[in-house]
């Protein structure tokens, strides 16, 4: 990626010039088409504008209106915003969202790094096991949630067989355990995906690094901490941003597993938005919550990118090839 962006501004090196010629033999059209311009991005831009920007603007407008889906929306000024910011359930939902997201990152990151690096090996047993392990990735979140709701039934599921661990099995009746179940199920479901990211990244680490380390007398653990982990830095940031955005917008799991309960104990912001808009038909308040989520997700992603130095696009392959 670094190469691509720098190439166009700096003078082409000797190695690149023949490549260009090979790709576009007729000189005239090469000049005509040139490097990717705005026009190339137009279809995607229009698509994005139509399905992302336009709805976003409409949501922003709607958050200042009162609308129950019938008749025409009425301007109410900042009424929805005042209501939401005074709503203890809303405030609580933000904390719950952040907690679940943080739990997701904290549990899934180490797990998927270890699994991904392990699965990067080319041994046959690893290939077979990781193929099995990737199955949850193929299931829809809805299916996964329905499955776990049944497996965790206190009278007929796992808790009934392991009372020493689960007690009366009232996992969905208390806040702490309900949050635990949500974190566990998303871990079960999404770790394979992040494992896949790390597996690919770990396989891309040049062998010469390990060979050099071995010559220097570094053991397996030192190799892991001083070569593998630093080399995975960019993948780690990618995976973490995906986790954070995924965590902030978690919805189906809550809808099917806890329905925001007990009471409002697991009502996270995305679910609260759904409740307001599509259960209570208060589209104004729902839109305000949605906008809060958009802003929060954007800010958090920007912070991660800044803090991690991802925006500087520093290669982690410096001096390797």
């Amino acid at each position, binding site marked *: 990626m670094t190469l691509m962006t720098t190439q166009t501004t700096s003078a082409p090196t000797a190695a690149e010039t023949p490549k260009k010629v090979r790709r576009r033999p007729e000189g005239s059209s090469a000049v*005509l088409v040139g490097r990717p311009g705005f026009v190339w991005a137009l279809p995607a831009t229009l698509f994005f504008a139509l399905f992302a920007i336009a709805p976003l603007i409409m949501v922003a407008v709607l958050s200042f209106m009162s609308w129950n889906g019938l008749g025409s929306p009425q301007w109410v000024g900042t009424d929805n915003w005042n209501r939401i910011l005074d709503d203890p359930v809303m405030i609580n939902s933000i904390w719950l969202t952040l907690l679940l997201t943080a739990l997701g990152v904290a549990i899934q990151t180490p797990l998927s790094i270890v699994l991904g690096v392990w699965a990067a090996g080319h041994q046959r047993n690893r290939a077979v096991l990781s193929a099995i392990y990737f199955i949850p990735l193929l299931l829809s979140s809805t299916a996964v949630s329905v499955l776990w709701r049944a497996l965790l039934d*206190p009278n007929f599921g796992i808790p009934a067989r392991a009372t020493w661990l689960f007690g*009366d099995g009232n996992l969905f009746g208390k806040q702490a355990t309900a949050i635990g179940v949500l974190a566990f199920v998303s871990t079960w479901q999404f770790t394979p995906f992040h494992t896949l990211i790390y597996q690919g990244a770990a396989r891309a680490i040049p062998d010469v690094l390990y060979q050099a380390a071995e010559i220097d007398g570094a053991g397996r653990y030192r190799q892991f901490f001083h070569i593998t982990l630093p080399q995975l830095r960019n993948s780690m940031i990618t995976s973490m941003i995906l986790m954070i955005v995924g965590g902030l917008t978690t919805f189906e799991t809550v809808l099917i597993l806890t329905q925001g309960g007990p009471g409002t104990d697991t009502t996270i912001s995305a679910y609260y938005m759904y409740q307001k808009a599509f259960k*209570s038909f208060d589209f104004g308040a729902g839109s305000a919550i949605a906008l809060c989520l958009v802003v929060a997700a954007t800010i958090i992603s920007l912070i991660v990118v800044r803090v991690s130095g991802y925006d500087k696009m520093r290669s982690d392959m410096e001096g390797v090839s």
Partner: protein
Amino acid sequence: MKTRTRLHGLLACGATLAMAVSLTACGGNGSGGSSNDGKIHVLVYGDASNKVEKQIVETFNKTSDVKAVLDTIPGADYQQKLQTIISTPQAPDVFFNWGGGSIQPFVKADLLMPLDDFIAKDPNLKDKFLPSVFNSAVVNGKSYGIPMRGTQPVLLFHNKNVLDKAGVQPPKTWDDLLAAVKTLKKKNVTPIALGGGDQWPTLMWFEYLYDRIAGPELFQKALEGDKDAWASADSKKALGQIKELVDAGAFGTNYDSVKYTNGASPALVASGKAAFELMGSWYYSQQQTDAKEFAAKGLGYTTFPTVPGGKGDPANVVGNTNNFYSVLKKTKHPEAVAQFLKLMYSDEFVKAQMSIGNLPTTTNVPKFLTTSASPEYSRFQYDLVAAAPSFQLSWDQAYPPAASTPMHQAVQQFFNGQLDADGFIKAMQALPTE
């Protein structure tokens, strides 16, 4: 050169636009249909009962010049989608609903046609239906719905074998129930199965106890906007008795992790791990599907126990009174619609509903009770509903849709102790009533 580049750009632009336009064009013509095609569109909740609705539409089309078309919206999305299309040109002429609060926002938005003119021309449109059922689609003194499926009163079901083994009789009074709870607990049986994870099964206990103790008037007042009703002595008494039952361990400790909708709480009763369950009359067919043998031999049912000293008539029932057809004001064929609605008390309609296990609420039902799949159960329900002075529509459907979520949360929190009586009263007072 420059012009050619621009041409390319224009082409790309055009292609994208064309795509966008065709996409939006697709979106315009979904289910629901427009009523400008000279037909009446009937929109119903899509499920197994559609068989009968199709048959009735066909019967109607045989004689009518204005044809009817049946549109369905599958399952759980019904209310959302209805809300989205009802004020658009795609709105149907006639649509399925639950009466009460489910149509109140539409009445308020002046979208529905009062049916009183139809009834004036054909009094049968009212007189042929059981009054307690018909009344739950009356809003502000005007009739807005004609019953069009089966009634679903809430009954107290039990496992006969479990009660026999414990030497317990089906409870007639509240004290019987409390005594039964004690005995059953000693036998290590969960006295009452409750799908608390779904929240609405918990609500049924409130509906019955409030009705038994305070009579249907208290809830009616609250629904009309009198917030003090919730803080009344009767309200507190009802809450006290619910708390007493919960604290006695009647529901065990893990009811909030159990769901009705995934078959877990009915399985508790069928397998003998629990003795009772309070549920709508659809419970019978649910058990027939899930546990055929138990449904045939071990499943018993009674009315909700009486509460000594209560103001409510012990013959009152709560539940889903029926589903209704309501008519949109903008329909171009009111005459045809009136003819269509008359089919809802025809013999053909009753027979067809009974054949799929629904119990219609028309006065000609007794003639056909023997044709039902389970005549004894159908007769029990019919007699119960016909004799009930009041049939309270489920609270979450009597209130407007906006109240449903906070109401469900409040009952769950009262059961698990997060809300005390005062907290519950405050939560109910905060519910929107219009």
